[in-house]
């Protein structure tokens, strides 16, 4: 169910192998983009998948559903939205720690959730009202104090997570607080037990979709120093939430038993409980077939129409995620808290990056390797953000001739006749490629890209000669390991179109460490007061998409369809965007048989 409105404001990392596509910066190439078969149109009509369970049988009382968390590594067990960074953890949290807010189909916050949001006339102040009946599962009420506390922790200089970005610095007084110049955040005001006011420096249209939406229980965390919170027991061992389910027992990394939270503010859930366990992607199909798991977010690379089990139903929706190829262009400067580019980086030459993008045949990857469940990506804003995605941007389509031309012009030529190009100074050029292990196509995918690059004369090698395991992959990317030149990864975009959290100067998630004045300017414009005018905002983001294609610090490679496979005994479950509050959707799930349907 990874896909029911995953409204984590900050971006969750998706586990995926990646790819790159260079964009057609047509500098010096008078010839127009050759139109190679490109797949911006969906190659597979996911309309053939229902978005909600079609089961109409009579439901049984209660029952326990088995949820399979598809991952080839244990989940890290950082079970708190303030601190987690991996998607497997988010998958666990959705059951007991949902977002406070409900959202509509374009991901803007609307009423119906555990809290409501309203704005002052000048859009400078937001008021959040938390539902009176909303309680933590340890019995304490969820208060405005708790909600404010989350902001205080994330803004604390000792905070070791990755959530502190421009959406937080936009709050009045946040930067003073972060710099320890103030004891409190002046822009956050607790009105009463359940009501909080947040004032912003610049009225920002993305607040409507991207406002931080998780409280942090002050009674529990208040006594823990901020630097130690992420490793504390309430995060790792006995996390407490306010969702429809609560944790009964847990084996960190392997399994979690949830029981119904009878005190859930919209009424007790229909199920008695949920058993979550980690399922290796290799055995997902068999686990579904045998009824071992009732619900999984189905890995696209295992989709094989010929051999799909008959006891399951496939639900499909366009995923809020994209895969990309990143180029390491600098470092995260911890003391300054911002990204710093290194002009001498191996990948610092723009033409080289663009050429690598043109060399990748993503259309074929999507069509063949992923059975059409993925499509070549053209821009860093995904089509699900229909208002802002610009279909006229073609991005980096497969065009090896253009790639060669770009490399020739930039001085990357083969001087010693070994079949690989040297850099403009004549030194050997070996590009180290970090790719993640994972599902069974991870290796063919990485090899295919390496082959694509070899076809245009670039010598790309897998980092250390092997694929990297998920956790160590992100560890090395985050720490700017100097051995990594390029990497393929994926982002869950969350529901806020504003890309500042991924590509801003102060965004730690900007793994390529790309910065530019133009980028700063556009990101700022996109969330300025003027941008409350949607046409203006649209134009700004169009420019931004073009800039990112031109500068190519990362190259989007694949968009994806998200599949959720459910056992045929599951009833009353809908994954479409805007269909209701995430917590209620889980609370509403029913079963129509005691035992899973087997094939």
């Amino acid at each position, binding site marked *: 169910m990874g896909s029911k409105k995953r409204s984590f404001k900050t971006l969750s990392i998706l586990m995926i192998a990646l790819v790159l596509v260079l964009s057609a910066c047509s500098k010096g190439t008078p010839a127009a983009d050759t139109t190679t078969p490109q797949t911006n149109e969906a190659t597979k009509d996911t309309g053939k998948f229902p978005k909600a369970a079609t089961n109409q049988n009579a439901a049984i009382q209660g029952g326990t559903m088995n949820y399979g968390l598809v991952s080839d590594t244990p989940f890290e067990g950082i079970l708190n939205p303030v601190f987690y960074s991996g998607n497997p953890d988010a998958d666990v949290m959705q059951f007991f720690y949902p977002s406070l807010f409900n959202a509509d189909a374009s991901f803007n916050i609307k009423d119906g959730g555990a809290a409501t949001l309203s704005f002052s006339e000048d859009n400078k102040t937001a008021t959040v009202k938390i539902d009176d009946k909303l309680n933590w599962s340890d019995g304490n009420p969820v208060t405005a104090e708790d909600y404010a506390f989350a902001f205080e922790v994330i803004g604390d200089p000792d905070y070791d997570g990755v959530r502190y970005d421009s959406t937080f610095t936009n709050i009045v007084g946040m930067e003073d607080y972060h710099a320890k110049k103030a004891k409190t955040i002046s822009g956050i005001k607790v009105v009463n037990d359940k009501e909080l006011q947040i004032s912003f420096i610049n009225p920002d249209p993305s607040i409507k979709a991207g406002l931080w939406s998780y409280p942090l229980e002050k009674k529990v965390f208040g006594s823990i120093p901020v630097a130690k919170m992420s490793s504390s027991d309430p995060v790792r061992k006995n996390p407490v939430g306010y969702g429809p389910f609560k944790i009964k027992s847990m084996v960190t990394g392997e399994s979690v038993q949830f029981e119904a939270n009878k005190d859930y503010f919209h009424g007790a859930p229909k199920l008695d409980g949920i058993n979550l366990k980690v399922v290796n992607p*290799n055995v997902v199909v068999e686990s579904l077939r045998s009824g071992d798991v009732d619900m999984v977010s189905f890995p696209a690379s295992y989709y094989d129409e010929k*051999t799909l089990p008959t006891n399951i139903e496939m639900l499909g929706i366009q995923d809020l995620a994209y895969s990309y190829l990143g180029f390491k262009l600098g470092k995260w400067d911890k003391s300054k808290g911002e990204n710093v580019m290194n002009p001498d980086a191996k990948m610092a030459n723009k033409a080289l990056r663009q050429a690598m993008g043109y060399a990748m045949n993503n259309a074929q990857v999507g069509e063949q390797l992923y059975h059409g469940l993925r499509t070549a990506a053209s821009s860093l804003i995904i089509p699900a953000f229909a208002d802002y995605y610009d279909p006229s941007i073609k991005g980096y389509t497969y065009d090896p001739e253009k790639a060669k031309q770009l490399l020739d012009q930039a001085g990357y030529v083969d001087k010693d006749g070994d079949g690989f190009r040297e850099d403009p100074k004549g030194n050997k050029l070996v590009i180290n490629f970090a790719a993640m292990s994972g599902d069974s196509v991870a290796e*063919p995918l990485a*090899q295919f890209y390496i082959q694509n690059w070899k076809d245009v004369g670039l010598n790309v090698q897998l980092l250390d000669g*092997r694929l990297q395991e998920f956790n160590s992959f992100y560890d090395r990317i985050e720490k700017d390991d100097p051995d990594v030149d390029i990497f393929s990864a994926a982002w869950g975009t969350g529901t806020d179109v504003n890309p500042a959290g991924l590509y801003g100067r102060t965004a730690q998630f900007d793994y390529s460490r790309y910065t530019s004045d133009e980028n700063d300017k556009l990101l700022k414009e996109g969330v300025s007061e003027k941008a409350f005018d949607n046409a203006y905002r649209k134009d700004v983001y169009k420019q931004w998409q073009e800039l990112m294609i031109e500068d190519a610090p990362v190259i989007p490679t694949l968009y994806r369809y998200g599949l959720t496979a459910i056992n045929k005994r599951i009833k009353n479950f809908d994954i479409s965007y805007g269909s209701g509050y995430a917590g209620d959707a889980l609370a509403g799930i029913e079963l129509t048989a005691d035992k899973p349907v087997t094939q």
Partner: protein
Amino acid sequence: MGMRAETFAPAETIQKSPSSWSILGRELIKDKLAMSSLVFLIVFLIAIYGSTFFIDQSSVTKVDLMSIKAAPSSDHWLGTDLAGRDIFGQVVLGARNSFTIGFMITVFAAVIGLTIGLIAGFFGGVIDNVIMRFIDFVLVLPFLMLVIVFVTIVPKYDIWAFIWIMTAFLWVGKARLIRAKVLAERELDYVQASKTLGTPNWKIIAFGILPNLSSIVIVNMTLNLAGNIGIETGLSYLGFGLPDGTPSLGTIVSNATDPNILQNYWWMWLPASLLILILILAINFIGQALKRATDARQRLG
């Protein structure tokens, strides 16, 4: 008188005691299974090493997304895998890689083990004690677990890194075996005589003791070869063996970890699995025959 007559028997009737080589050879010929294994192995090795001239590794490992999971056909004799790579070519290259690596590890381990075993056994005393305690230490380490850890942390991972990691653990068993034999050997008269005559130690070891150990070394290496191929394919199957992109029998078999492939795409894993079985059985049959040859009571011929 009779005694005398025997002593002066005509030269042509003197029976030279058979050399250990001819005993080994005779034992092989007597054992039909071992003989046919040997013939198979020789033909097989000529085939896989010879085919290197016909099969281009880069074309075999080339990902071809247009022919994914193709069933066996005249283009691809054993079909293709998830990435559209020809299985037949991979099996040939994989068998070559797996055998080469098994062989290299065996040889390196034997050379190191032999040297250290000879030194420890021949000199004895403190040297022996130090070496043997170290060997005991290495032997108690959980070998496979450590190999897996090393494989994940070694910075530049390639075939040679793999060979050295394996060798680092596998020489100890051999050293222990050799040392035990040398201990017995050095008490024999010919060694004592050489020492008395002032022959340097290295000469005694190299020209005196070593030839007398040759048969046991050969037998042990043969049996180890099968074991080492098994370890290599096993580790590759688990994903801790050869680097990605290097075909090995183990990596081909690991296609079968996907149950969908296991059930519906037999050609991706069955040929390689059968080959491992036959290869290891053949080497083992030969090794068994050689082993019997070194033990007079078990000989067939």
